[in-house]
Structure formats: structure tokens, C-alpha cells
């Protein structure tokens, strides 16, 4: 793979990239995806208002004491609180119903939430109410400074709903981009075969150059799109001061970006090999189905894991199996079931599998690309000795 090899390969990649990125459909889909990211990040932050500060109404005679307890509870949970005193319980209840308040603390009697918490853990509002309830048992004594500094640590990493949702969004993105760009690689290969331009090309470049250039060019196209989405994510999150920027969500975004690259790298050559087996666009879905099947399975199972409780052993194993790892590993990282070490192990396995897949795919591609007409059987392509 000397300079001459690369110069032709990069020419092929450049043509591929230009053809895709100059297309109007590419600009339109990128724009739509960017707008979707902006909306997904901005709308919860803006509608949620107060930028993460919980609004607590207090009802009771000793307003100062009640307010102090609420503030302490906020300090323990490391949450900002905005306290409003109400003379009339009915008014406070009405505000709670309207969503203007998150919690109402009725001094010496009860804590009100808009909705009954579904289980013990609950969401942010229930946690705040729980903390207030704890502190309300000993309202007379101010909390010692040391107690406020005690760290609260979970045995698993924090997995707030927003982190899980971020994980889900990224899993969808990984699945869609690998699927869409993979299909485009296949149809690009088929187009070269069916228009017979491949014979002119192969008179001056090697099949390995054509294959490499094609997946590189398509990869650049895909990653420009992903980069646009990441920029949109960070710019919007910064602009609206989204809570996604401070928590575990940012880690999920970065791990997801890694898996997106690895997932594309693993699958792209297989899609090209699949395309080389056929001569008609209409056969494409038949040959690409086996390529996307593992990814599809992990994609469908990932939703249950994100919204359900602990992942099953099967799904955990999928996080190390290269074709399913991009989706499964991202999912488990988002739910806090695995850490960076496990992600790194799965990534190394995936890279090794990528190299092996590329070798095999190149062999199939080289042996099938000039054979037109009937679909080339995979076994034939692997066994053939200089087929054309």
C-alpha cells in the first residue's frame, strides 16, 4: 500500500464523497437531523423552565423554618430549589396541579406531589420530597456543615431518565446511520456493476482500491453528518444551559460516537461485499439482510433494556459480540450497567473483528465484482479461483 495505491484510492473516495454530499437529499436529511437534535435538547430545557431549579411551595406558620429545611434538602441532593411561601393550602395545591410547583411542603403534616411516585426510587421530584421528609423529623437543629458535605454514592453509576433517553437517541442514530450508509454502499457497488463502469475502472485500479475508496468516501460523508449533529447537540445544550451537559449524558454521547465509528467500520466492507454478489438493485435487500440482522436484533432488544430494569445475560453478552456491540454496549453504558473498561474491551474485540471482516469482504468483492448476470453464491465466491 504505497503512495500510488493511496492516490487512486483517495480519488475513488473523493468521487464517492462528492457524489453523495452534492446531492440535495443529503443536505435535506442533514438539516432535518440537526433540527431534530436541536429540538430534542432545547425543548425539555426550555419547557422545564427554571433551568433545573425545583420549585417548592411551603404552607405553614413558621415559614422561615420550613424554607430552611427545603434549602437544606436541596443542598443534600445538590439541587437548586426555589421556595415560595403560601398562606393558603388551596392556592398551593392549585399551583402544583398546574405544574407551576414541583413539591408542596405542608408544615408538620405532609408532602404533596402532582403524581403518586410509582416506586421507591422515583424521579427527581420524589427524591426531593423524600429528602425534605427526612430532614423534617429534626427541624429544630440546623444541619452540621459536615453532614451536608457527606457524599451520596450509588453502587451503580447514576442513570437518570435523561441519560437513558440520550442513550436511546444515540442507539437509534447508530442503527439508522449504519443501516442507511450501508445500504448506500451496497447500491453504489451494484450501480457500478449494472452500469458496467466497473470494467473501465478495474482496467486502471485494483478491486481493493475501489472497495477501500468507496467505504472511505461514504464514511467521510456519514461522519460529516454525525459531526454536524454533535456540534448541534453541544451548541444547543450550551445555549439553553441543558442539564445534559453536566451529567452522565455527555459520557453516553462520547461512547456512542465511538461505537458509531466502530459500527460503521465493521459493517461497511460487508455491505460492499454483499453488493458485489448481485447485478440488480432489486436483489439488494436479500443480500444485505444477513448483514444487518444482528444489528437489528440488538436494536430491538435495546429498548427493553433502556426502559426495563436490569439487562439479561443475553443482552450483556451482545455487548461483546462485534456485530451487536455498537448498539448493546452503548445501551448498557447509558443504563450504567457497564463502565468504560467494559466498553474498551468490547471495542478492542470489535476492531479485531473489523480487520477480519474487511479481509473476507475484500476477497468476496474481488472475486465477484466482474461477474455479472445471476447472483453469485457466497460459497462460490469464497471457493472460486480467479472467477471471471
Amino acid at each position: 500500500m504505497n503512495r500510488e495505491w493511496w492516490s487512486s484510492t483517495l480519488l475513488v473516495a473523493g468521487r464517492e464523497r462528492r457524489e453523495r454530499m452534492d446531492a440535495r437529499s443529503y443536505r435535506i436529511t442533514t438539516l432535518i437531523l440537526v433540527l431534530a437534535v436541536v429540538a430534542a435538547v432545547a425543548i425539555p430545557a426550555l419547557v422545564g423552565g427554571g433551568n433545573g431549579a425545583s420549585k417548592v411551595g411551603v404552607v405553614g406558620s413558621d415559614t422561615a423554618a420550613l424554607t430552611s429545611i427545603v434549602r437544606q434538602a436541596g443542598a443534600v441532593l445538590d439541587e437548586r430549589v426555589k421556595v415560595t411561601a403560601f398562606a393558603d393550602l388551596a392556592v398551593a395545591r392549585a399551583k402544583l396541579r398546574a405544574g407551576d410547583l414541583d413539591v408542596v411542603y405542608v408544615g408538620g403534616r405532609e408532602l404533596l406531589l402532582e403524581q403518586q411516585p410509582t416506586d421507591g426510587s422515583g424521579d427527581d421530584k420524589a427524591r426531593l420530597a423524600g429528602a425534605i421528609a427526612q430532614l423534617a423529623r429534626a427541624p429544630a437543629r440546623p444541619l452540621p456543615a459536615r453532614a451536608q458535605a457527606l457524599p451520596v454514592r450509588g453502587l451503580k453509576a447514576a442513570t437518570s431518565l435523561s441519560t437513558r433517553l440520550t442513550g436511546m437517541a444515540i442507539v437509534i442514530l447508530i442503527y439508522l446511520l449504519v443501516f442507511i450508509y450501508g445500504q448506500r454502499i451496497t447500491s453504489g457497488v451494484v450501480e457500478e456493476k449494472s452500469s458496467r463502469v466497473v470494467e473501465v475502472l478495474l482496467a486502471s485500479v485494483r478491486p481493493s482500491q475501489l472497495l477501500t475508496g468507496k467505504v472511505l468516501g461514504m464514511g467521510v460523508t456519514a461522519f460529516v453528518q454525525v459531526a454536524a449533529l454533535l456540534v448541534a447537540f453541544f451548541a444547543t445544550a450550551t445555549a439553553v444551559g441543558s442539564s445534559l451537559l453536566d451529567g452522565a449524558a455527555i459520557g453516553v454521547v462520547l461512547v456512542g460516537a465511538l461505537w458509531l465509528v466502530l459500527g460503521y467500520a465493521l459493517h461497511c466492507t460487508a455491505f460492499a461485499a454483499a453488493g458485489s454478489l448481485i447485478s440488480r438493485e432489486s436483489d439488494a435487500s436479500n443480500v444485505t439482510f444477513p448483514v444487518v440482522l444482528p444489528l437489528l436484533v440488538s436494536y430491538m432488544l435495546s429498548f427493553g433494556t433502556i426502559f426495563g430494569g436490569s439487562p439479561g445475560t443475553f443482552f450483556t453478552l451482545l455487548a461483546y459480540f462485534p456485530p451487536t456491540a455498537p448498539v448493546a454496549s452503548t445501551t448498557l453504558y447509558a443504563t450504567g450497567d457497564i463502565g468504560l473498561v467494559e466498553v474498551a474491551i468490547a471495542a478492542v474485540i470489535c476492531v479485531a473483528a473489523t480487520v477480519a471482516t474487511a479481509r473476507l469482504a475484500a476477497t468476496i468483492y474481488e472475486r465477484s465484482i466482474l461477474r455479472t448476470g445471476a447472483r453469485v453464491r457466497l460459497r462460490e465466491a469464497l471457493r472460486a479461483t480467479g472467477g471471471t
Partner: protein
Amino acid sequence: MLELHDLHRSYGEVAALDGMTFTVPAGRVFGFLGPNGAGKTTAMRAILGVTALHSGSIRFAGAPVDVAARRRFGYMPEERGLYPGMRVLEQLAYFGRLHGMTAAAARQAGAELCGRLGVAERLEAKVEELSLGNQQRVQLAAALVHDPELLVLDEPFSGLDPVGIDDLSAVLGERAAAGATVLFSSHQLDLVEHLCEEVAIVDRGRLVAQGRVEELARSGRPQLAVRVVGDDGGRWADALPAGAARASTRDDGTVTIALDDAALADAVLDVARAAGRVEHFTFQRRRLSEVFRESVRRVPA
């Protein structure tokens, strides 16, 4: 100079190339003839490396052909192939660059060729928007854009109108005069006869005749065409001297006579003059189509 030596390639039971051997000299337009299925396309694809040979060797300019050498070749395959959605000039520039040209040089050469081949106004059109004839011209431009040292064109004239044929003939002649080796296949034998200085005729994967068109035309038994005024049946030729035989008689009474030896022409003339006034008496040049038919004549099973 391109040398094909003892090429073998079979598809299952069928031998497409069965020991084909011939040499294409540089600086000449060289015609590659043969009936359908004779192995022309397989041989051309083997030269470009898109078909693997079972045995045999191909050398260009004295060296075995490799990937680097093929960058100096220009190829027009039997099954035309261009990117349908790509613009003409962009496409030509791409092919030029794949053969090692700079972007600017490739664009310039592509635009010039389109001018020569009559598609100058369609540089910014997509290939799929062009008529088939114009697609063919662009395909030719793609084979020529990098000024190749060897041109291998599979049926380059099929589908072109007479103006296109003239344009392409002129371009091929120029390239050959500039020292390039030009090999093209065709079934249009009159065109080949007019354009080529030399041809190879192949059949069933082997060479059956090769030579300069002029020599092939004079090869074989000499033939006379003779017409005697008033004898529309050519009956005077019933009494020909030994070694001369009537080959055919045309409607106007012209008799073609095959001679064992050109010297017998005088004796034939004497017989004709004795029969009446001789209106037409020439040695007949064989047409390339006759040479072709004779070379590939099938032995009945």
C-alpha cells in the same frame, strides 16, 4: 508494440481462447476481426486484466503487462460503462486522474476530446441525459482522455452515425501516427478495410489470418474479372485454358476467373478476344470480407 502469446482461457467446456497468438505493431491502426464468439472480447479483457488467463503471456513495449502499465492503456469495453448520474466533463476528468493526470490537465483534455468527437455542448450534462450515440462518444473520450500508449477498443464504431465514424477514424489515425498502438474490433469490414493498415482474423480462440490489408487482398489465387460484349451468359468462358477456372458469373455477363498462376492471364485474354470485343479485363483485388469468409469458413460437421 503489443504481443499476445499462446493465450488460453476456457469457461467450463468452452475454450474462449485456444492458443491465440499475434502481435500488434505500434504506430498503426490495427483491426481485430472474427465471427461472434471467436474470443475477441475475452482477449481484449485479458489485455486489460479484467479477465484472468489460464495460461499465456501478454507483453507491451517488451515488458509483461502489470497494473502500472495498464495505467497507460485506454479501454472501451464491449458493454459500455459510465456513471449515469455524473456529468460528462467531471466523469472524463475522473477517468483521466485515475490514469495519473492532474485535475486541470484531465479537464482540459476531456473538453478538447468532446470537441473533436462532437459532444462539446454537453460537457455539463449528465451521461444518462445523452442519446446513446452521444454516450458512445463520451465513452470513447473516456478511453482516450489520458492519451494512452495502447488503445483497446471493443466495437468502437457500432452505434455511431457516419459523422461520428469519420470523427473517430480521424482521432484513431492521429493517435497511431503519434506512435500509439491501436487495437480495435469490428464487424464493419468495409470500414476496417478503409481505416486499418493491418488486421488479425481470429476464430475459435485462435489466429487464422494476419497481415497488412493490402497483402491479404492480394493473397490467395489471383482472380480476373472479364466481360465480352454481347455475351451476357459468359459462354465464351466455357473453353478456358488449363489452370484457369470460372469462379462466378455476374448478371451483366462479367465472369470472374481464378487462376493457378497470374501468367495464365494472357491465355485467358486470347480466348476472350476470340469470342468478341473485350470490354472489361482486370485483376481483381479480394475484398476483406472475402478474406474473412474464407478464413473462418466452417467445415461442415
